[in-house]
């Protein structure tokens, strides 16, 4: 038998048919739906008189548009267009009979946090959503990726997707991370190495000692940003940590089915002599706490660095770097630690889980954020929020001066009231620093949760190891 990668195994297990030219029909085990990329798909079903093929495998959660302020349940969502989109999701979920977590349900949150939390995401599955950060679920050893709205409609109607197979890429992180260096720094460092197009055409499998040492939360952070490196998906082979995380979750298998599932899941690894089309090996000890200086997730530097000159780059990147420097209002040669910050955002599908908040609380406990700083912590789900309150984390954050919000996508993408004003500068634990991402003419520096916490305390980008 030919040796297979983990991706090969999941792919083969979901093939419904393959045409002569290699175009394949892939079965989809879980379809996650949110309010922004689904209304046109449901409208398409209605217009064609079609049903949702497998409503029991389809989960709908509002997240992008929902306000995160504590008063959100008291009145209607003020923005008319947001309200229409949220209402449309509710109507579509109820009309077509899919699983639905409304805004007032404690289980509501960012769809990529709700899926794993509720046990919808399991090893070996195919998981899709009309959202590029679906890559998050790859942390469980499931093949998970974003799709467009036409494909959302296709999956709703047929529970399959027309796909061409990607190539296999291995990203191995050897050795151990230094103190103060996190999963976020790993994934940012990798994108700094590959560039935002380096993974195009590939599915990445992350492996190595430093990946194995990560918690499930950390692994989700790593896979979440696979898309920022251009990859179709990121994967991590499931192990005992994965099984322990999944066990007992509401939609995880129980009893005899659990045992059968576990037996299967233990076969989900890359065979010893399987071949990858591309391999990148990075030493964990070479990774420093990382920050972005520009407007592309590939604009990554260690916090000890300085803002680059446009002429440091080649080809089309020279103009792009100059444009980024102008947009970000930065002077080449200045130390990254001299960049002053006025806003801190901790949350998103990248870093909105309980472990992220525990780490932030550890840094800010008994301290106060810099005077005048706007700092918010936004849990990835209502259950994360409840757990943080139970553990006393929420109170530590509030005492330090953070706003403690309700669950949603919040300031990651400024489709809801949480936005930056023009030229405001944010240390953000989210995943994209594109122009305008957090508000028109806003300036984003991507960082890990502990680095965001450090910046909140000092008022400028700060090496968390020096606090």
């Amino acid at each position, binding site marked *: 038998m030919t040796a297979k990668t983990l991706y090969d195994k999941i792919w083969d297990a979901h093939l*419904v*048919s393959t045409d002569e030219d290699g175009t394949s029909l892939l079965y989809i085990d879980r379809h996650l739906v949110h309010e922004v990329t689904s209304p046109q798909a449901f409208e398409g079903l209605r217009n064609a008189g079609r049903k949702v093929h497998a409503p029991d495998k389809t989960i709908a959660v509002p997240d992008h*548009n929902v306000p995160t302020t504590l008063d959100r349940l008291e009145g209607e969502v003020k923005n008319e267009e947001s309200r229409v989109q949220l209402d449309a999701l509710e109507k579509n979920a109820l009309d077509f009979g899919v699983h639905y977590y409304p805004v007032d349900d404690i289980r509501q949150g960012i769809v990529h946090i709700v899926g794993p939390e509720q046990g919808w995401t399991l090893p070996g599955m195919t998981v899709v959503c009309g959202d*590029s950060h679906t890559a998050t679920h790859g942390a469980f050893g499931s093949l998970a990726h974003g799709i467009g709205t036409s494909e959302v409609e296709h999956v709703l*109607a047929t*529970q399959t997707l027309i796909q061409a197979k990607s190539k296999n890429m291995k990203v191995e992180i050897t050795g151990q991370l230094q103190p103060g260096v996190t999963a976020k720094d790993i994934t940012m460092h990798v994108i700094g190495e590959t560039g935002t197009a380096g993974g195009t055409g590939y599915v990445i499998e992350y492996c190595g000692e430093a990946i194995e040492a990560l918690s499930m939360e950390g692994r989700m952070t790593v896979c979440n940003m696979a898309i920022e490196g251009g990859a179709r998906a990121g994967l991590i082979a499931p192990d005992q940590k994965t099984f322990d995380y999944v066990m007992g979750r509401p939609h995880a298998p129980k009893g005899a089915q659990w045992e059968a599932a576990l037996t299967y899941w233990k076969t989900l690894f890359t065979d010893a002599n399987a071949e990858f089309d591309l391999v990148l090996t990075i030493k964990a000890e070479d990774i420093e706490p990382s920050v972005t200086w520009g407007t592309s997730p590939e604009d990554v530097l260690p916090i000890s660095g300085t803002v680059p000159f446009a002429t440091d780059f080649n080809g089309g990147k020279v103009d792009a770097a100059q444009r980024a420097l102008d947009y970000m209002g930065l002077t080449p040669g200045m130390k990254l630690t001299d960049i002053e910050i006025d806003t801190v955002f901790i949350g998103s599908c990248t870093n909105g889980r309980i472990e992220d908040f525990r780490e932030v609380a550890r840094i800010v406990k008994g301290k106060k954020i810099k005077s005048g700083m706007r700092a918010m912590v936004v849990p990835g789900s209502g259950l994360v929020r409840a757990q943080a309150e139970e553990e006393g984390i929420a109170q530590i954050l509030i005492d330090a001066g953070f706003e403690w919000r309700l669950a949603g996508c919040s300031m990651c993408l400024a489709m809801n009231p949480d936005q930056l004003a023009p030229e405001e500068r944010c240390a953000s634990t989210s995943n994209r620093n594109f122009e305008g991402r957090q508000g*028109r003419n806003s300036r984003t520096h991507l960082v890990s949760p502990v680095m965001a916490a450090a910046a909140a305390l000092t008022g400028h980008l700060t090496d968390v190891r020096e606090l």
Partner: protein
Amino acid sequence: MEKFTKITGVAAPMPLINIDTDMIIPKLFLKTIKRSGLGKNLFDEMRYDDAGAEIPDFVLNKPAYRNAQIIVAGDNFGCGSSREHAPWALLDFGIRVVISTSFADIFYSNCFKNGILPVILPQEDIDKLMDDAARGANAILNIDLESQTITGPDGGEVSFEVDAFKKHCLINGLDDIGLTMQKSDAIAAFEAQNATSMPWV
């Protein structure tokens, strides 16, 4: 979906690399529940100033390019989000072809679902087409999907590769869902087998 066979139109040069989906259609315009009407906000933050007035220097605001149907772009066009609003906005503006050295995966796939042809060419061909596109209203390119060729204003011809299945769907304006539903027996058989072998799914 509108069929795509041949297009003869003005090509607009956008040499910037990594043009992302937030640039193509900023998130505040994603709140629509329709596919149409996004063209006026295509490249919104590059195209209009804070007061909403057109920025004259932006390529699609220049008289020669206001009716462009083709964009010649820098590397890695369409990176970022899966939002199909990006191709919807391009299409609504009138863009039917984007030419670059590389595209982000999901954007590339989304184009084909909406009658837009993304063409991948080597850097030297892009450089030449970028020069052609810089000629303003004279920057007429002819794109023929059937023969997989692009003809420039000087008559020079460049050929391109495209996946046979995607080409077939684009030329015939085919709906993927209809095609897949013809395989409903295979889907049912897969589900029946899975119900036994992996009942937890």
